[in-house]
């Protein structure tokens, strides 16, 4: 009996010291891709699908905390089978394990729906001390999912964290906003979105790539995470390419920088935009 209590206490203690971190990622077409609307669909030619670049900062932030305080980093992704590659990238960076949530019923998922599925998956994993996101994705770009996941979980939201410091049962972040930097604190567990100031994401190491190739990535269905497919509230009705705006450029030339500048200044003033 006594032994059991001691063991339990020990386990609790270990759990308190070691952080359990989940980094949520998405797979998107590479930023250089020539993305177009074609026949009502978004296409990107043969451009590669990659881990959303903003999410690499979330993985980097998670790994920094794991290095500082010990613990585990799990990467979590909703997507098709091909999204394994994005998870493997995060594993190669140093994450401990990965989970893919994939289900045929997830054809149309808006951000509230994604938040509900992610929150269900976080619970299925057994909760966490911190769930980290990138600030937004390159595809939808709305940046709503982190705060919506926090709201569904009922956890505090610390958005746009450029620095993260965990101390005991709380986390303090330096929040990078247009007006400057704010120091904000919350009790754990918390949801964070991480921005570029956290530091450049590390490159996958050779060892990391080998480890990632051997790691088994479980695929969970919606039933596995005990949720149904959320009905989309926001939906797309039309897809368009932006109007092509190639303009006839007027080149300004002259004998000297002064003459060019003088002509250019006249042109700008004639546009009446100042």
């Amino acid at each position, binding site marked *: 009996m006594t032994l059991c209590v001691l063991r339990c206490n020990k386990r609790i203690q270990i759990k308190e010291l070691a952080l359990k971190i989940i980094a949520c990622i998405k797979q998107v077409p590479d*930023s*250089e891709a020539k993305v*177009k*609307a074609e026949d009502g669909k*978004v296409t990107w030619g043969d451009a590669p699908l990659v881990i959303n670049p903003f999410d690499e900062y979330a993985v980097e932030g998670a790994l920094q905390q794991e290095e500082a305080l010990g613990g585990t980093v799990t990467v979590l992704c909703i997507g098709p089978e091909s999204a394994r590659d994005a998870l493997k990238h995060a594993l190669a960076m140093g994450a401990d394990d990965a989970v893919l949530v994939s289900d045929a019923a997830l054809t149309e998922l808006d951000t*509230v729906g994604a938040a509900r599925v992610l929150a269900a998956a976080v619970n299925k994993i057994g909760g966490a001390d911190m769930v980290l996101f990138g*600030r937004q994705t*390159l*595809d*939808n*770009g*709305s*940046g*709503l*999912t982190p705060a*919506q996941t926090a*709201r*569904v979980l009922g*956890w*505090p*939201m*610390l*958005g*746009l964290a450029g620095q993260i410091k965990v101390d005991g049962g709380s986390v303090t972040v330096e929040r*990078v*906003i*247009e*007006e*400057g*930097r704010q*120091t*904000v*604190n*919350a009790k754990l567990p918390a949801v964070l979105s991480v921005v*570029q*100031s956290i530091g450049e994401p590390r490159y996958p190491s050779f060892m990391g790539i080998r480890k990632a190739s051997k790691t088994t990535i479980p695929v969970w269905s919606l039933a596995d995470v005990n949720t149904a497919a959320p009905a989309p*509230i*926001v939906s797309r*009705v*039309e897809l*368009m*390419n*932006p109007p092509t*705006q*190639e*303009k006839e*450029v*007027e*080149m300004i030339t002259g004998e000297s*920088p002064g003459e*060019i*500048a003088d002509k*250019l*200044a*006249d042109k*700008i*003033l004639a*546009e009446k*935009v*100042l």
Partner: protein
Amino acid sequence: MKTFVYIDHFKGEVQPASWEAIGVAKSFGTAVALVFGTDLDEITKAAFEYGADEVIVVDDSALTDYRAEPYASTLSALASSSSPDLILFPTTARTRELAAMSAVDLNTGVLTDVAKFEMNGEQLVATRPIYEGKVLEKTVCSGKPVMATIPGRAFPKPERVAGTASAAGTLTKAAAKTDALTTVQGYSASESAVNLGDAGVIVSGGRGVSNNPSLTPPAGMDEKQAEVWRAQQGFALITDLAALLGGAVGASRAAVDGGYVTYAHQVGQTGKVVAPDLYIACGISGAIQHLVGMRNSKVIVAINKDADAPVFKQARYGVVGDLFQIVPALTEALRKKLGK
């Protein structure tokens, strides 16, 4: 149609797109401005002067600092009790969280960065950029209220009519929700406030800004330090021109990644799409993300030493030349002609 317009402010400084949102709301019907925080008299007065039919003020010490949870709960409670059809926000770091959370509470959705609204019968259809603006989508929200955020300068700002305050509209005071889960412990202002979204003029620099061979960096710098030092001298020229025109300083991703200026200056890539009246690109070759981020500008001027640079395809006026000579000469020429 009744629209709530959330007036976003930081320590009393209102994001101008909040006023633009009042203009959009008026075009649909009744505009009810929501003002949260403390010491809100000035903002309330301005909301009426920009045309709000009603202002709901929630003045509570629990809302002194913006914090996502109590702000979202306060908004959700107001929306539940007075059932607006639409809630509009200017797109900012705060409203993305606030709208996101409130949408979960109200089981509705948020259409972000809307560039255009149209009605299809009873349904509001919003056009918004996706894939960094490479593609546009028309979206609808089946929940109620519909929530939408608008970027700066996408819609005309209504004229401010002084003296209309409170005489015209109804002022309601409402209670705050105080379920704060976070504590704000400190704040430091940016060294230079960067607000590209609302700037009428943007002068931007790219990688080319570090390529001035005629500069000799101070002794003892390594190659990278020398590059950054050169770029900072170049950005000083850009800053001079921006300051003369009352504009903001922008940068390409290459300039930000090179460490020449901070991330806050970056145009493109982060979804930071700008649309000033005048955009001057200096030493920027024109990667697709950058072009997508600035091509809605009214007049684009490109200065680059490479005549084949893609940036010239988006420009109204182009100069093939050395930006280190052209930019200061342009600053001087405009200073004279503007009589400044």
